[in-house]
């Protein structure tokens, strides 16, 4: 592929010029801020382990990384309550961890193992579990938006105090379901939050080839709902913005759109070296790395010592060793499973 070198400038230049050290104001207590740190670090370190497994040939199919986008997943998911329902996409591993998914589950999914949540029937992060408020998306982008609207509608009808949340990328906002889903959410006034992760690139297509607008958040106006731009690499900003949207939804204020400006620090998937992304963009965004920024915040504001952060990392590292071992030990699924489970058995006397 011909490399694009100078033709694309830095993305979101305004954001790039911002003071990157200062994070959003928050009332989150220290312990919970350390939680955010733990989840972001787990997100990144688990993906690094997955990268090792990929290079060892253990991963079946593609491997998708959310490197650089951890704050968006973790900050938004952390603003949800246990009864809420979320539909994470392929780059929202952090969201899944916040909802209680164990790294071994994701590792087994990527390795197509028998004990994976789907038993080998589906790949990667494509699994759900409503007992943990998780819906599995499909690869057709945007499709999960109306589904989350339906879950929010049902929650409303059933008198449950729940809010639904899902994600879409900058590229995914070009789909029909993005428009139909968001419009339906607005018309029905359901408790729903859509996080648009604007990471600059949809596979190899830059945002400028998806749309002519600068801020995707402005699209909210088309649906008569609030839209907000947030620094997607500031976990506290993402948390605070999501919290506001979730609380508004829970009070009956309807859906919101939040655009988190961030950057995809790797290719579309592991096989893709992202040679089409100008190096300067990586350089700009490397300085805004969400985890390093948050570390500086925690240390600079006396919320944690270096030893404490090191201890968290060591604990994650040890835990991941066990997770990898467990995942590797799981067998491949028995072939006969391929034929099972297409239909839900019908109640007696109703159906075949």
């Amino acid at each position: 592929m011909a490399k694009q070198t100078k033709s694309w400038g830095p993305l979101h230049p305004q954001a790039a010029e911002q003071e990157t050290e200062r994070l959003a104001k928050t009332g989150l207590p220290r312990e919970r801020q350390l939680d955010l740190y733990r989840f972001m670090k787990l997100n990144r370190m688990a993906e690094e382990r997955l990268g090792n497994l990929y290079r060892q040939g253990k991963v079946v199919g593609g491997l998708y990384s959310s490197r650089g986008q951890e704050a968006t997943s973790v900050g938004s998911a952390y603003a949800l309550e246990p009864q809420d329902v979320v539909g994470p996409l392929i780059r929202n591993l952090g969201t899944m961890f916040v909802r209680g998914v164990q790294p071994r589950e994701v590792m087994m999914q990527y390795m197509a193992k028998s004990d994976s949540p789907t038993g080998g029937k589906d790949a990667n992060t494509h699994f759900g579990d409503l007992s943990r408020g998780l819906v599995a998306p499909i690869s057709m982008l945007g499709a999960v938006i109306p589904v989350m609207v339906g879950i929010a509608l049902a929650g409303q009808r059933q008198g449950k105090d729940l809010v639904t949340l899902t994600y879409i990328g900058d590229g995914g906002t070009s789909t029909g379901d993005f428009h139909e889903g968001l419009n339906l959410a607005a018309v029905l006034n359901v408790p729903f939050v859509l996080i648009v992760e604007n990471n600059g690139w949809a596979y190899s297509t830059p945002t400028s080839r998806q749309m002519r607008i600068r801020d995707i958040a402005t699209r909210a106006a088309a649906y008569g709902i609030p839209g907000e731009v947030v620094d997607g690499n500031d976990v506290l900003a993402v948390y605070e913005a999501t919290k506001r949207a979730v609380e508004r939804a829970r009070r009956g204020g309807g859906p919101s759109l939040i655009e988190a400006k961030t950057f995809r620090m790797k290719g579309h998937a592991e096989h893709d070296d992202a040679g089409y992304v100008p190096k300067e963009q990586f350089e700009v965004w490397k300085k805004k790395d969400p985890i390093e920024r948050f570390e500086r915040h925690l240390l600079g504001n006396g919320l944690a010592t270096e030893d404490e952060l090191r201890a968290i990392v060591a604990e994650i590292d040890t835990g991941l060793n066990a997770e990898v071992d467990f995942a590797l030990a799981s067998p491949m699924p028995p072939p006969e499973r391929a034929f099972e489970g297409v239909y839900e058995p019908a109640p007696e006397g109703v159906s075949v």
Partner: protein
Amino acid sequence: MATVTYLEAIRQALWEEMERDERVFMLGQDIGTYGGAFRVTAGFLEKFGPQRIVDTPISESAMIGCAIGASMMGMLPVVEMQFIDFISCAFNQIINFAAPNRYRWGQPVPIVVRGPSGGNVHGSAFHSQNPESYFHHTPGLKIVAPGTVADAYGLLKAAIRDPNPVLYFEHKYLYRRIKEELPEAPEAPEAPEDSGLVPIGKARLAREGRDLSVITYGAMLHVALEAAGRLEADGIDLEVLDLRTLKPLDQEAILATVRKTSRVIVLTEEQITGSVAGEVAARIAQHAFEWLDGPVHRLCCPDTPVPFSPTLEEAYLPNVDKLVAQVRELASY
């Protein structure tokens, strides 16, 4: 016993299921105040309120996506396509979200998508289609297509109670043209809840005969029955099998009628290539080859869009004359 039309049977089934089970609710365009383009839901808004009769924007994909989500939460959504032709706008939600969901991650999707299909009412290319074969290919879906009043009633109730995504293709030509007696709605709480229910997956022998089988469904059932009456004079005794459910096909019933008569015509209102009729014919060829006394015929529509003008549409659709001619040809094979 009350005598009702096919349309009233649909309406009655919906009404009773909504009364019986508060999890049932409807999404559709113009189904509330207006009562639906064909008046299927007239009076529903007043009875069940806007929480359960939800008028939506013109967004078929979002409507069905929304139903999928609500069903995951234990609700039982019924989505009305104003004309079934528009189901193509929601193809992705049905094919990629609803159908494989249980297989992929264990979460069933008990939704019903229903709407008027079929031609012979001069509805032209986008208000006359029979899209069943697009979906027939897809594991995880069930498809029903009632041809009688009793089946319109009983299959809709079964579809709503089925824990899988069910596509319910009603035939608009039959809406007000056929009438039958239906059991009264069960009034007493102890009345059997499954009164009138028609099991999904079971074909029905609509007419017993010796000489030749016509396997069909929907409005074509009535073409087959009329042809059977006309052929009596020729001494040809037709057997007519009404499939009722297209997915899963009642293969036993299909093979049984073929073994009995050894001659078979599959009569459907689809364009012929890649049709449900093709699947029925293939199964007969594979599993009942040695019972056949002649080739398996398909009498379907030609491979053209549905034409508008009555003379064109008449040429396009199967009818009694065309069926009688095919029967005579096959009977003398």
